[in-house]
């Protein structure tokens, strides 16, 4: 990340360095310049559209895309990458996001042309290698969760939630229980949970967590009943706590005829050790881009496979992959399937990556994931416990939430700590989530970080708190090392500019 050096050759108020680094690709455009290498266009092709396509269908002017060279394009995006932090730039303890290292052998598999050049409408016989990967990932995810019905179609976690809730509705419809329209969701839940519920025409019912940050069984009992479609729980929850009474809660919901949905975003904490099917889950999504080492791509694509109990499996989106007795693989379209939630087969390249990861780690390697994710989180927590308020005790699963209320009193809020961390060279943790902790800082180190890094980060956190107590303004003034300082987000929303003017 570059510190701006003021240089005096200015034009439009931009220094040379800024002009080199910060213009948009549109500002770099020069009429007539090109960046492609296509076969020369035969003269007769110039007029082909007029010949075969009625004029009313034709575009009058070419689209106003930038006219730039390949070199300009490469430099431009290289500059943009230089203004972006990633896991290979620095520690990225963004809570709830499991920013673990993305192994490069995954990319080896995903990059093979034998996978990347397939067309989805090819016959299954011509993609047995791919279907085997699909089948294996289905099998393994089913076994890790003890929820044997698997679909790799959903494109992300939220998409998996939505898909499972659709399946729940179809299931209740089949049973004639159309009055089950409520989804019970603890107040620690991620925003996608209520949003997904709404999307399938269900009504989210929020319940408050108890003082330990977990499901309040009494509160649950109050709302559960014949209108309950689902209880939707994240386990470990977003406070980094294991819902140790979830089996009990599930029992209550099951008794009332409802289903239990597990938001598997935090599966990294328990993979290889606890099977969500064993603590009452009936359906669950898994973020391959969290637990299973798929890179996040700056926001996506991810992949949100779902795993469900046997009796829900027929409703899975179509198709799934099955293995026949002769050892061949094929697609299966169950007539009871809820249908399609995505075109074709899901985020295929990610399934290949996950296949590689699962095969490389195996059973013991996966158990190591949760072991060391939890050890790292507890160790980092132990380093911060003196300086920061710890709402939920000294033990945590793979992540933990600290509360900067003490620091806020000195004039340094969670957001200020986050920004100052950037100047120390770290990507900040998640802030202000979960909503039930006022100055929440949610820290997830993951199993792939080392002790030295955790200590360095803790040193920075402690130093920021110390600074805050003597000179809050110094912290509030951060970040200073970034290409821009704090941005006017309110202004952006008030008068939104979402495309560059022509």
């Amino acid at each position, binding site marked *: 990340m570059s510190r701006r050096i003021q240089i005096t050759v200015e034009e439009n108020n931009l220094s040379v360095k800024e002009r080199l680094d910060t213009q948009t*690709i549109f500002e770099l455009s020069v009429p007539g310049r090109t960046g492609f290498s296509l076969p020369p266009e035969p003269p007769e092709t110039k007029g082909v*559209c007029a010949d075969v396509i009625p004029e009313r269908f034709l575009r009058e002017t070419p689209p106003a895309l930038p006219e730039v060279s390949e070199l300009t394009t490469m430099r431009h995006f290289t500059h943009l990458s230089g203004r972006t932090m990633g896991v290979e730039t620095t520690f990225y303890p963004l809570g709830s996001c499991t920013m673990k290292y993305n192994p490069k052998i995954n990319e080896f598999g995903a990059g093979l042309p034998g996978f990347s050049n397939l067309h989805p409408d090819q016959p299954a016989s011509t993609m047995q290698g791919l279907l085997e990967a699909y089948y294996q990932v289905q099998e393994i995810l089913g076994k890790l969760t003890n929820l044997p019905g698997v679909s790799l179609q959903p494109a992300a976690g939220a998409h998996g939630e939505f898909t499972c809730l659709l399946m729940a509705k179809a299931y209740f419809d089949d049973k004639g229980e159309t009055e089950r329209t409520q989804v019970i969701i603890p107040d620690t839940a991620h925003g996608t949970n209520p949003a997904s519920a709404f999307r399938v025409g269900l009504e989210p019912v929020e319940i408050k967590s108890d003082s330990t940050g977990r499901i309040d069984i009494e509160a649950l009992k109050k709302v559960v009943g014949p209108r309950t479609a689902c209880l939707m729980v994240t386990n470990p929850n977003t406070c980094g706590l294991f819902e140790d009474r979830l089996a009990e809660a599930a029992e209550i919901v099951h008794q009332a005829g409802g289903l239990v949905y597990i938001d598997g975003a935090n599966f990294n904490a328990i993979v290889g050790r606890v099977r969500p099917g064993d603590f009452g889950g009936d359906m669950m999504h898994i973020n391959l881009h969290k637990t299973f080492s798929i890179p996040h791509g700056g926001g996506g694509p991810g992949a949100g496979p779902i795993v469900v109990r046997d009796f829900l499996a027929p409703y899975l989106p179509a198709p799934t992959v099955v293995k026949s007795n002769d050892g061949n693989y094929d697609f299966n379209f169950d007539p009871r399937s809820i249908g*399609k939630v995505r075109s074709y087969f899901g985020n295929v390249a990610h399934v290949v990556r996950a296949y590689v990861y699962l095969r490389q780690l195996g059973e013991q390697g996966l158990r190591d994931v949760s*072991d060391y994710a939890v050890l790292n989180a*507890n160790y980092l927590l132990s380093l911060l416990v003196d300086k920061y308020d710890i709402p939920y005790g000294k033990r945590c699963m793979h992540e933990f939430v600290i509360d900067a209320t003490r620091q806020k009193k000195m004039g340094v809020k969670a957001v200020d700590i986050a920004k100052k961390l950037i100047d120390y060279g770290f990507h900040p943790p998640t802030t202000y989530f979960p909503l039930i902790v006022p100055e929440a800082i949610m820290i997830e180190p993951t199993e792939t970080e080392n002790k030295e890094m955790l200590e360095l980060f803790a040193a920075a956190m402690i130093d920021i708190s110390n600074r805050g107590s003597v000179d809050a303004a110094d912290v509030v003034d951060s970040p200073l090392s970034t290409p821009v300082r704090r941005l006017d987000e309110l202004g952006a929303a008030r008068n939104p500019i979402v495309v560059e003017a022509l």
Partner: protein
Amino acid sequence: MSNPYIQATPDQIIEMLAAVDATSIDEIFNDQIPSDLQHKDTFDIPTALSELELQGHLTRMAARNQAADSLTSFMGGGIYDHFVPTAIMHVANRSEFVTGYTPYQPEASQGLLQAFFEYQTLLSRLYDMPVSNASLYDGASAVGEAVFMALAVHPDRNRIVMSESVHPDSRALVATYMAHFNTKVDIVKAGNGLTDVQALGESLGDDVAAVVVQHPNYFGCLEDVHGIEKRVRESGALFIVVADPISLGVLAPPGTYGADIAVGEGQPLGLNQYAGGESVGIFTCKSEFMRKVPGRLVGQTKDREDRRGFVLTLQTREQHIRRAKATSNICTNHAHNALRASIYMCLMGPQGMGEVARACVRNTNRLKSAILKKHTDAIAFTAPVFKEFVIRTNRPAQQVRDALLLKGYLAGTPLFETCGSGYENLLLVATTEKRTDAEIDGFAEALGEFL
């Protein structure tokens, strides 16, 4: 250590356990998780392979697929064998782009944010629509989100009208998405490869929230978008257009014929075919709907020193703020695929987009002519097309496909497999800019006996 990515050394484990007051990792778990919930048995999953072994294993696995780098592809119907400039992956694969999360901390991710702002601008200009979001999952779910948005714009309407010529997966997806949303989805026939505009007009009413049309449609044909728009406008419904971005190199963009929402599948913009799994959902709309847009939006703003900067904006639309009332449940989107599509559009520019599109038109026309020479009735639908069309075969198209596979062709999509009965002898073929004259002529020749 069985997991090569874990860094703790035996000494460090001891130190860390001491610091957290535990004698073993198990103890930390046992403190928090009832023992009976812990699975002590084997999980019975395949044994671990090292990276050394995986390189060979994966190479052999990929070799069990037959892909377009060894076969000549005339596949289409949504995913295409278009040219992918080599430069894209070289810069898109920089680890900052690959490994970063959604840019929640704008100062630490200005590069990503600017890239998404540029993506929005590129799509807005290509589709001639004032607003684009920062990507959705794929083309089909973009249709689904568009329909949801139309219902939010028209909370008093509960019917969607869709043409049969929309991609079958998009149709299926909308059916799934709406199944439990108290909304009816009516399909208008497209018997001769084109939406029956008359029937469409008749199916409209003031209970219709949106009309969905694809142009060029699933069968490759150009729809009477102007005629359709007029009828949609009269009904007060929103006009949702699904458009292939490559076609917009030469075709009039949805903004010019009155689309309220224009969506599409972005794979043709420099993404690999990847069995349909390297997708990006394009979502653009009119300005008036900006605050109802699903998914991420990046906005331009200023920092404390008046420098231009970019942030995620209008976040109050989103699930992490608005929760159940959000405009969509989307969180993770298809950012990296959007980035790659952006790089593609930058490299191509207006001229390259035009050349690619014209080459598609030319090649498709060449194949069509060659086929017509073999059999004057072999083209199923007569409407003008862009880059694909439907062939009528003299036997079930699946048999034709299988026979031509042995000759080295990925010969197209037997429509029976995607559209069901009534489509047995129809084969959908696409001809992109990558096909050479020799390949096209050879394919026409090979098709000969099946027409």
